[in-house]
């Protein structure tokens, strides 16, 4: 339209365009902003007339010929008539398969990223496959066209084609692009915009955070994917009819009803009370731009929260009202609203899934042709989008799903399409959401039946009979090894029979309980077996447990007798091993339905509860294990789990069932990695069990390296993928992850996590023999794969009951809805099916926590605290202030006479030591949120270090502990506490090491403290004859944390001051998987010549990194100035032919941003020095900013920096100054990989600093928002965001097997 004008005016971008332009700038190589489709024509197309028609529409559609170029503060656009995308006709009819050729050509074109500054943002092409078969391909950057705009063009082309062929009226031309820009400007300046903003802010004020329907949605969404998965499902005619009918009956618009139905589906999947979906709004009604091809579409949030029990039309009412209001306020941009609400960065989205209903989606008629639409891309998909297209007359609705491949598999996208369609149909058919299961009938069938098809014949017998047969069959084989001595099966048989005879003589048998409280020893095994052979069930008790707890258990279980060394609380009679005979005949023994054992677990009411397991149940479990893993007589199985923990059951009896050897660890050895490693080596152990946290501690011990066993089992808590991988790096054995509660005969599911398993997370797997696992919603209906539900167990292995608690039994063991007459057990665990039917464990649904393998009811601890008169009110929480370090903390409102030490003693007398909180925090009141629940976020982290843990023992430990306490300003420090966990930071670390040098005359070096941060470990190092080579913390390459030798470490580059100690938090967060090495400025040393340029400095650092000889690829990170250097190093390393993995810039911006700033004066340098030392220069207004005064201040202030030798302080000043000069003179070159920018999202308000400034200097740019100021990027909070992202990033660059290899 503007072709007649020589130069079209330069126009601002609309608000809608700005968001897209910024997103494309951030990721210039990303083609996902290309939207595209093709219409497939069958029939005789008049190509000449079609060309006329398309070119006619192209002449009218100005936006297709835009060029958008960056200017300071944004971008401007201008129509360039030479860019109009005239129809290009491509004849593929000679190709062997023209359709495939055309599809490939379109895919190639769609994959091409567009530079908006170059134009060429749209393409119109016709592929001729045969005279009667054509594909009309249209591609446009989302900046210039949205879906509605594309339809405008299609309809216009149809009108013109019709007119050309038939002479019909061609209708109204498309409206000029300027109209859209003008209207946008008018709205931006209008009072209506303010009113709209107020409406949205109010609506969203109390809205919850977004829970994605895909796992990891919150974090993954920070990175825009390059493609999307697409899937579709048809919604049948009956559903379309029901939709219209229901809508008409209740005076609703059917698109609104459909939007809410799909929203209800999304809400189901999140498992939350409220889901927020995004609703697309065409933004064209009553607008001059209604017929302008452009991008105007807006996405606004809809809060979906409904009473599922209400009739459908009532349940949707509130959302219908919201939709009506949305239309009144719909011009306000969703992107702007997100900024208004501060919902920025990872996990702070405005909405989850998007629902996009296009009721006017209609392919216009082309005379003589049938036309079918194929979508190729509709722009970026952050999460998942449900598109519903239909034309006004059509009875069928087509549901398309587009999903972000970072979050969903193609299979999941297809399942969502199919399931959402089913959900909509079922909701309309039943008229009530509550009546609709989330899973489709086919899914439910598969998850209830097919996955649980575990029927397997098992002899109906008892453990006593099976072991009896084994003992008789191999009398001379070794049954038990203990402290170097062997016990044959014959002796075991005799002694257990004799004990059984004694019990029978006391009329103890079927239906009775006998308590066992013995240290690990052959007598313990004889006791357990003897009790079972007598027909009774054993009740294991831990002599180390507090008397109060033992008394309560004994009072409720009422055992007939106790096999123990010493007296137990209460009346129970004791029969010590010394009075057991060695000869006697075993009685008949138990029946399969009799109890084998009863194990007490923590109970939420404060009362422990005893699960009773029958022989039939445990025989199933052990027979399965024996056959599944092929146990045989040659196996030597380590027994190290206390008998009160049900893992011990298979450790004790599987070897006896298999004729193998049971190797008992000495009492207490189960907590000592060195002793376990020795035992495994010396006894030739083939099979051992570890609780994952114990496995982690075990692997950290040098003696574990290189161990080989046949298999290792994990259970009791979550086995993380990192731990699995560390396991395989350290030792050679199969690794198996088992899961099961005490209430179901030890384990009910299994997963092979052996070498080669890449699952993240590691599943708990599939059900064992004759066992069924269900993942159900609150209404006990199966939930589909990918959706979190409650885990239930059914089958042979279920416990019979809780001892003496029919009430608890009835609550936990409920009728199995899928097998009439059978029971299922409510585990209280949350779980989710993977698509392949494997189950993932997702934590507890109630107050129960798992700590180092122990299942703990917080309620039991709370009850113990509440029983003290010193406390008015209390809550116990499991805090994980540092990843992987879960601790129990009690928060309480004290009563008169409160004393923390006395309370600790009170609690320790009532619960086992692993249940005693590590800290008791007294508060004036317990914080609650608006719904009256405990506000966990408002609970302060406890101050650690008040005399917890082992006291220092050796002379070195005592002296070191005193130094720790001095530096940390604490009254005392125990031997095992982490210096950094106690609040030590890098500067305090230096202070400490200087004192260590003074005190001991030895200098283990700062790096040694990072690796050995406790008094005990540092003492070991100092006491060692040979200290590692000293580093004074100032050398150019410093080790900040040790990692696995086979993994590529992370190199971190110093910021302005030249020191890299500030990366301590990050280093510890990445350790022990990843080593972290810090590059420090060589010119801290006055003798080192200053570098000539930043590139020269980077080249020097690159050489040092290469010389260090670690496995590649080389991962780099740098904060502030360090980021600029890291970028230059990456360029240099690539030049040298080395592989660069992660390149992480921690809130650093290119040199271009600093060149314009004035040359820094001395005062600026000294202010920087003060900041590095941890002072706020603004707090020292009277301090003259010159060398002498600042140095004196630093020394007097007692800051660690002030304790540095003068020459070093001078070095820091020199480096700050030098870095400033180097940066101003630096010209960035382009790095041919992806830069990951960690942006300090709370900072830079009002400054033109943007990660996008790196775009010209990298092939790709990814941005992760960190909720911090620039100066806080090294803090614990920021590290909590940065470390996991970095870990993933590094994991996505797998290393080469060997060491650095030059590619050149």
């Amino acid at each position: 339209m503007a072709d007649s004008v020589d130069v079209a005016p330069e126009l601002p971008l609309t608000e809608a365009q700005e968001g897209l332009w910024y997103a494309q700038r951030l990721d210039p190589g990303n083609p996902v902003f290309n939207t595209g489709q093709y219409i497939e024509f069958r029939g005789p197309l008049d190509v000449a007339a079609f060309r006329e028609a398309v070119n006619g529409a192209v002449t009218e559609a100005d936006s297709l010929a835009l060029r958008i170029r960056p200017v300071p503060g944004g971008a401007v656009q201008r129509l360039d008539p030479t860019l109009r995308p005239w129809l290009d006709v491509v004849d593929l009819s000679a190709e062997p398969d023209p359709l495939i050729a055309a599809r490939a050509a379109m895919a190639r074109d769609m994959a091409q990223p567009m530079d908006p500054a170059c134009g060429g943002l749209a393409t119109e092409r016709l592929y001729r496959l045969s005279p009667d078969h054509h594909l009309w391909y249209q591609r446009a950057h989302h900046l210039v066209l949205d879906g509605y705009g594309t339809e405008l063009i299609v309809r216009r082309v149809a009108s013109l084609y019709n007119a050309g062929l038939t002479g019909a009226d061609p209708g109204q031309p498309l409206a000029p692009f300027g109209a859209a820009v003008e209207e946008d400007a008018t709205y931006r300046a209008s009072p209506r915009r303010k009113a709209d903003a107020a409406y949205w802010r109010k609506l969203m004020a109390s809205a919850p955070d977004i829970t994605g329907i895909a796992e990891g949605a919150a974090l993954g969404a920070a990175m825009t994917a390059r493609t999307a998965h697409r899937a579709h499902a048809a919604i049948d005619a009956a559903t379309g009819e029901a939709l219209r009918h229901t809508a008409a009956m209740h005076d609703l618009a059917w698109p609104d009803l459909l939007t809410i139905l799909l929203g209800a589906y999304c809400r189901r999947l999140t498992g939350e009370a409220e889901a927020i979906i995004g609703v697309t709004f065409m933004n064209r009604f009553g607008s001059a731009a209604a017929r302008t091809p452009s991008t105007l579409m807006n996405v606004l949030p809809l809060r979906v929260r409904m009473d599922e029990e209400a009739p459908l039309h009532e349940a949707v009412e509130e959302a219908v009202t919201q939709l009506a209001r949305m239309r009144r306020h719909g011009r306000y941009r969703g992107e702007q609203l997100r900024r208004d609400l501060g919902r920025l960065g990872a996990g702070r989205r405005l909405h989850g899934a998007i629902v996009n209903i296009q009721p006017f989606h209609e392919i216009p008629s082309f005379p003589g042709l049938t036309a079918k639409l194929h979508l190729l891309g509709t722009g970026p998909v952050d999460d998942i989008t449900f598109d519903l297209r239909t034309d006004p007359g059509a009875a069928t609705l087509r549901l398309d799903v587009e999903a972000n491949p970072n979050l969903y598999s193609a299979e999941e996208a297809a399942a969502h399409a199919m399931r959402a369609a089913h959900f909509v149909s079922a909701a309309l058919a039943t008229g009530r959401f509550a009546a609709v299961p989330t899973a489709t009938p086919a899914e439910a069938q598969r998850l209830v039946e097919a996955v649980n098809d575990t029927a397997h014949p098992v002899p109906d017998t008892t453990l006593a009979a099976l072991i009896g047969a084994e003992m008789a069959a191999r009398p001379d084989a070794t049954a038990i090894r203990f402290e170097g001595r062997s016990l044959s099966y014959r002796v075991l048989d005799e002694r257990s029979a004799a004990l059984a005879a004694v019990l029978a003589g006391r009329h103890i048998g079927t239906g009775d309980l006998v308590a066992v409280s013995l240290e690990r020893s052959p007598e313990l095994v004889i006791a357990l077996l003897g009790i079972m052979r007598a027909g009774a069930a054993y009740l294991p008790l831990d002599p180390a447990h507090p008397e109060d707890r033992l008394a309560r258990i004994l009072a409720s279980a009422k055992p007939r007798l106790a096999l123990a060394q010493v007296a137990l609380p209460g009346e129970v009679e004791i029969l010590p091993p010394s009075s057991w005979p060695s000869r006697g005949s075993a009685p008949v023994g138990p029946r399969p339905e009799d109890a084998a054992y009863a194990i007490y677990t923590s109970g939420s009411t404060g009362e422990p509860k005893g699960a009773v397991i029958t022989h039939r149940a445990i025989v199933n479990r052990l027979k399965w294990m024996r056959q599944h893993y092929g146990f045989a007589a040659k196996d030597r199985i380590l027994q190290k789990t206390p008998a009160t923990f049900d893992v011990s059951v298979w450790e004790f009896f599987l070897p006896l069932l298999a004729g193998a050897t049971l190797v008992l660890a000495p009492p207490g050895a189960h907590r000592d990695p060195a002793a376990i490693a020795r035992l495994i080596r010396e006894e030739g152990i083939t099979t051992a069990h570890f609780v994952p946290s114990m496995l982690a501690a075990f692997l950290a011990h040098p003696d574990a390296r290189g161990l080989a066993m046949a298999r290792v089992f994990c259970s009791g808590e979550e086995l993380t993928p990192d731990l699995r991988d560390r396991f395989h790096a350290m030792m050679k054995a199969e690794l198996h992850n088992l899961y099961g509660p005490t209430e179901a005969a030890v384990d009910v599911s299994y997963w092979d996590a052996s070498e080669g398993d890449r699952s993240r997370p590691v599943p708990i797997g599939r059900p064992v023999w004759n066992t069924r696992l269900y993942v159900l919603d609150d209404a006990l209906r199966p939930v589909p794969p990918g959706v979190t539900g409650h885990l239930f167990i059914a089958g042979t292995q279920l416990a019979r009951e809780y001892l003496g608690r029919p009430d608890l039994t009835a609550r936990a063991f409920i009728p199995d809805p899928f097998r009439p007459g059978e029971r299922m057990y409510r585990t209280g665990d949350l779980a989710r099916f993977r698509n392949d039917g494997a189950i993932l464990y997702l934590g507890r649904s109630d107050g129960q926590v798992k700590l180092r393998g122990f299942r703990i009811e917080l309620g039991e601890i709370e009850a113990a605290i509440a029983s003290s008169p010193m406390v008015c009110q209390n809550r116990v929480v499991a805090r994980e202030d540092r990843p992987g370090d879960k601790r129990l903390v009690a928060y309480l409102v004290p009563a008169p006479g409160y004393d923390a030490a006395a309370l600790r003693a009170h609690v320790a007398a009532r619960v086992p030591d692993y249940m005693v909180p590590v800290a008791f925090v007294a508060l004036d009141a317990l914080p609650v949120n608006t719904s009256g629940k405990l506000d966990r976020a408002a609970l302060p982290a406890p101050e650690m270090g008040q005399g917890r843990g082992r006291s220092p023992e050796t002379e070195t430990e005592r002296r070191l502990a005193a130094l720790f306490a001095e530096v940390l300003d604490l009254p005392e420090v125990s031997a095992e506490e982490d210096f950094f966990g106690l609040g030590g930071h890098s500067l305090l670390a230096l202070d400490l090491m200087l004192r260590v040098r003074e005190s001991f005359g030895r200098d283990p070096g700062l790096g040694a403290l990072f690796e050995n941060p406790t008094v005990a470990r540092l003492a070991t190092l100092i006491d060692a004859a040979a200290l590692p080579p000293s580093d004074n913390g100032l050398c150019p390459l410093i080790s900040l944390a040790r990692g696995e030798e086979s993994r590529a470490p992370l190199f971190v580059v110093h910021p302005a001051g030249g020191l890299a100690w500030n990366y301590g938090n990050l280093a510890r967060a990445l350790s022990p998987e990843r080593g972290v090495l810090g590059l420090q400025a060589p010119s801290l040393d006055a003798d080192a010549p200053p570098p000539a340029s930043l590139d020269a400095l980077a080249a020097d650092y690159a050489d040092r990194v290469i010389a260090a000889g670690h496995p590649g690829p080389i991962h780099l990170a740098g904060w502030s100035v360090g980021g600029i250097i890291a970028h230059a190093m990456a360029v240099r390393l690539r030049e040298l032919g080395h592989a660069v993995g992660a390149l992480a810039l921690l809130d650093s911006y290119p040199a271009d941003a600093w060149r314009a700033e004035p040359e820094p004066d001395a005062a600026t340098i000294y202010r920087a020095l003060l900041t590095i030392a941890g002072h706020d220069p603004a707090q020292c207004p009277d301090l003259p900013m010159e060398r002498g005064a600042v140095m004196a201040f630093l020394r007097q202030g007692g800051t660690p920096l002030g304790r540095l030798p003068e020459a070093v302080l001078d070095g820091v000043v020199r480096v700050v100054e030098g870095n400033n000069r180097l940066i101003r003179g630096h010209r960035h070159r382009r790095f041919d990989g992806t830069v990951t920018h960690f942006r300090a999202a709370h900072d830079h308000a009002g400054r033109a600093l943007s990660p996008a400034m790196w775009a010209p200097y990298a092939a790709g740019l990814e941005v992760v928002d960190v909720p911090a100021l620039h100066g806080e990027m090294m803090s614990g909070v920021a590290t909590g965001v940065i470390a996991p992202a970095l870990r993933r990033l590094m994991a996505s660059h797998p290393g080469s097997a060997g060491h650095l290899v030059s590619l050149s």
Partner: protein
Amino acid sequence: MTEETNPPMTRERMRADIARALRMDPEEVGGDDDLNDLGLDSMRAMSMVLRWTERGLQLDFGELAEKLTLDAWWAVAERAMAKRVHG
């Protein structure tokens, strides 16, 4: 869904349909009143246009959306009906 045999669209019929959607009397809807100001939103308009389509009058929603007055809409309808007769 169509119970009646489709009577041809007239300006008065259009006015009556709009008024019903807005819960107003037909005489309250003036020829150049902004329908948006009278409370018509895109969803109500869409429903109305869908009903017209079912009755056989196919109107371009984009053209209707451009200017929200009875006069403008009737002009769009007249053009569509003329096109149907002649085209």
